[in-house]
């Protein structure tokens, strides 16, 4: 037989196939209806343009949706998902090809295309699809942490039934029609063997029954598609397309000069942007955010997944009522309609529900370290942290409701420009006997060394400031410090929701800094660094910021400081803690590692490092909030560091240094925790 003529009789054994078409249209209509219901819900949110830079947006969709790169980061389920995804795509192509051939008269579904795509391709695709679904069902049953809902299983069982049913139909067809190209359908041929003992009539009847059931189930799935979690097929590529293209740590700019400013942060569901609300529907509850959330892992009542879930549920109940109210305001409803739409008690209860309090528990809201791990892990590029900060902003700026211990933190920042509340005029006392140049005496310095509050006031971190200043002096760097004119960068205030305090501090700093003509700012604190890089430009403060690890790396590469070469037996093993605001938010993973390797130290990575690194527990202003002893993130992370049996734990962030040092004391571990600058200084001794 000529392979070029290879094909099969489409719709073999099927009469009155026209029924299929109205059914299909009906299923599609149902699906469109459910999608529209979702669409109008997320439109309840505030407008925000997320359609600029189309090329960049599309390339993200290609990488993370079509090629599934982010999904594949987690091996087991990533591969299973790829099996489902690729299987479904090939099956869809094969089915569409047959439809094009039969219904549109396009004559191409034969020959090698038939053999490779429609016969062999869909057989393997179907197998991959069924195996992947079976794996997922077993995983959901076995893994209790997945918080499986009945609907999760319903979707999987439906899909598996469609997949297995497809093979049964194929097997019956091969057995009944005596397909000469059956070798190209190996799974179907294998299934056909099971029907060998049936006579032609039995096969034809069984085929007809199964074919129609298979079709009915497939159409039911199409109808159910946009109602169920399967809608992610549409929503996730869309959420990736509409992702924020700004740096991941950026927060919405609030202009306090604007006289019309009435809402600060998010006080109720409809204060969120449409994309925020869209995110709650696009969340597939894959658990990756939760499995990597320091708050959740340390036993606090926050789960980024649950946050999305709760907001999504709140949107379902409140969104429709908001739409009704808006329609009434616009007068779109007739009087009769208005009369019949008087709110019921249940609806009143829904409208009375508060966002923070009833929907999101305050303890959960304040547990976030804003480490960004959830967003880093999310295959759908959802934005959890900005939602949390926006809700905090409303709580602090509008309601003035926040954990009581923050009262003094905010006051301290206001009055003395540092969260410790130590006298502002003692800020430069960290220098001790070192005689460092002040910017007033050297206004054109190449580097302004921004000490940050921890580097200036915390005795442990003062040692880091002195070590780094000494390194710069040794390398003959032209630098100066701001002295007592420096104020808190405002990072913690902002991420704790005190946007006004941040605005005040940041503007004061920007005004001070603009008076001098230094070239770059160098700082040992990733939070200050992030403020200069991401936050201050929104207020017109554009300065070139460098983290001290970047500068030290450069100095070593240029030979301006030369670490001693150690004998192999003298080399210590070291593990490095990635700071979230340095690594995940600003992509600086290599500079500190290169420094440590140039010191001939053996770096042993923790099981979670770089982009997967676990926060120390201090970010997002958490360092200023009480933490139960049993729920300390620092203890968790310290345990992970100790698993590498390090002789030293290296950090490049004052918060990480403080938290991991605390963690070591909690565990009575003698391992020293040191900043990279201190380690370098010891090696250039």
């Amino acid at each position: 037989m000529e392979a070029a003529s290879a094909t099969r009789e489409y719709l073999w054994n099927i009469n009155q196939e026209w029924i299929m078409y109205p059914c299909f249209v009906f299923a599609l209509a149902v699906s469109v209806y459910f999608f529209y219901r979702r669409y109008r819900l997320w439109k309840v949110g505030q407008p925000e343009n997320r359609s600029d830079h189309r090329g960049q947006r599309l390339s993200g969709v290609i990488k993370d949706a079509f090629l599934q790169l982010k999904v594949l980061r987690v091996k087991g389920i990533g591969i299973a998902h790829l099996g489902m995804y690729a299987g479904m795509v090939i099956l869809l192509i094969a089915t569409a090809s047959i439809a094009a051939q039969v219904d549109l008269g396009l004559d191409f579904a034969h020959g090698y295309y038939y053999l490779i795509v429609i016969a062999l391709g869909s057989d393997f695709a179907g197998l991959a699809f069924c195996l992947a679904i079976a794996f997922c069902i077993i995983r959901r049953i076995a893994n209790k942490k997945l918080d499986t809902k009945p609907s999760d299983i319903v979707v999987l069982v439906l899909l598996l039934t469609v997949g297995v049913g497809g093979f049964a139909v194929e097997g019956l067809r091969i057995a009944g029609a005596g397909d000469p190209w059956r070798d190209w359908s190996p799974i179907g041929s294998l299934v056909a063997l099971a029907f060998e003992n049936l006579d032609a009539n039995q096969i034809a009847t069984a085929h007809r029954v199964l074919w129609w059931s298979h079709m009915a189930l497939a159409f039911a799935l199409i109808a159910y598609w946009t109602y169920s979690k399967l809608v992610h097929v549409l929503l996730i590529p869309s959420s990736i397309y509409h992702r924020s293209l700004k740096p991941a740590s950026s927060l919405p700019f609030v202009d306090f000069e604007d006289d019309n400013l009435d809402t600060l942060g998010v006080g109720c569901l409809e204060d969120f942007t449409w994309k925020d609300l869209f995110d709650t529907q696009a969340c597939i509850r894959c658990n990756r955010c939760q499995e990597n959330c320091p708050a959740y892992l340390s036993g606090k009542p926050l789960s980024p997944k649950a946050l999305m879930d709760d907001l999504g549920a709140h949107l379902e109940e409140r969104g429709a009522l908001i739409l009704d109210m808006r329609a009434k305001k616009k007068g779109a409803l007739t009087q009769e309609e208005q009369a019949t739409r008087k709110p019921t008690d249940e609806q009143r209860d829904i409208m009375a529900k508060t966002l923070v309090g009833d929907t999101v528990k305050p303890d959960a809201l304040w547990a976030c370290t804003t480490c960004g791990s959830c967003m880093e892990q999310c295959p759908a590029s959802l934005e959890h942290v900005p939602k949390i900060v926006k809700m905090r902003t409303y709580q602090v700026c509008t309601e003035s409701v926040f954990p009581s211990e923050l009262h003094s933190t905010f006051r301290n920042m206001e009055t003395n420009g540092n969260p410790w509340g130590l006298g502002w005029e003692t800020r430069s006392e960290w220098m001790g006997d070192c005689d460092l140049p002040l910017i007033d005496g050297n206004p054109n310095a190449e580097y302004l060394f921004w000490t940050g509050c921890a580097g200036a006031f915390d005795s442990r971190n003062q040692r880091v400031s002195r070590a780094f200043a000494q390194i710069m002096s040794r390398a003959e760097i032209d630098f100066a410090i701001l002295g007592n004119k420096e104020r808190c960068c405002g990072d913690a205030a902002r991420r704790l929701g005190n946007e006004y305090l941040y605005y005040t501090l940041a503007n004061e700093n920007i005004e001070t800094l603009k008076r001098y003509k230094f070239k770059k700012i160098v700082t040992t604190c990733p939070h200050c660094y992030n403020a200069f890089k991401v936050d201050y430009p929104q207020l017109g403060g554009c300065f070139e910021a460098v983290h001290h690890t970047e500068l030290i790396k450069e100095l070593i590469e240029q030979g301006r400081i030369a670490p001693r070469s150690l004998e192999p037996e003298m080399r210590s093993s070291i593990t490095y803690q990635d700071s979230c605001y340095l690594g995940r938010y600003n992509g600086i993973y290599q500079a500190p590692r290169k420094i440590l390797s140039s010191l001939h130290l053996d770096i042993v990575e923790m099981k979670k490092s770089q982009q997967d690194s676990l926060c120390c527990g201090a970010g997002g202003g958490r360092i200023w909030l009480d933490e139960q002893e049993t729920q300390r993130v620092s203890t968790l992370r310290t345990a992970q560091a100790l698993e590498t049996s390090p002789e030293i734990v290296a950090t490049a962030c004052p918060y990480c240094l403080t938290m991991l040092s605390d963690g070591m004391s909690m565990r009575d571990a003698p391992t020293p925790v040191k900043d990279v600058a201190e380690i370098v200084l010891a090696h250039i001794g």
Partner: protein
Amino acid sequence: MRIVVCIKQCIDAEAITKVDDHGQVIKEGQSLVIDPYSEFAVERALQAKDCGEAETIALAIGGQEVMPTIRHALAMGVDSGCLVDDPAIDLDDPVEKSIVLAKALTKLQPDLIMGGYKSGDTSQAQVIPRLATFLKIPYVGIVTHLEIGEHAVEATHETDDGFEIIQVELPAAIAAQQGLAEPRYPSVRGIMQSKKKPVEIYNLEDIGLSPSELDHPKPCVLPCRPKPARKGGRIMKGELSVVISDVVAALKSDGAIS
């Protein structure tokens, strides 16, 4: 009911305090904040406002530098402010300040006068009891709890070894101690609104006081010396039972226990 809270501006408690030759705190270059004791009084007045019909006014003495402190009280929720600004007033003299405040209060006609029982910087505890004496109204100081009625208040006065509950008829002056009320943190809305709230500025003439009426024997601070630096503690190490007996022996030898 009209509640007037007398508020003072003082230097931040965390600042390094320096005093001049006359024993007065040097304010130059220091962060100036609302006195924490005044703030307890403001908060209690606002709580009364929150649950009733009370009108609240913040009253202070000083120059324009005091305005941020008045604005702070307004941002917390106080309805209006009143500043007595006159170069003739000696701002370091508590007697003179209480004469001025008493006169201003006569003009404002409050039902209840509140203030801090002392201030965070000088801790002299003079002004509120003195102005109550001038006004010939009852005064309760070091108040940690206050029930406000229509015609009388019931104040919990902290004593060295406990407390006493005193009922006084209005008008009365109440001086706040820590614990009376936990001050609220002003919301941004409050801060924005505070900029629009009225602040009356009076000089001595406006309140009907002539500079000669301020003449009186002035109290003065005689010597003033910094608190001696804390000596380092002693750390006892070793077996718990030995340590305990060492501690007991050390306390006995220091005369702390007999």
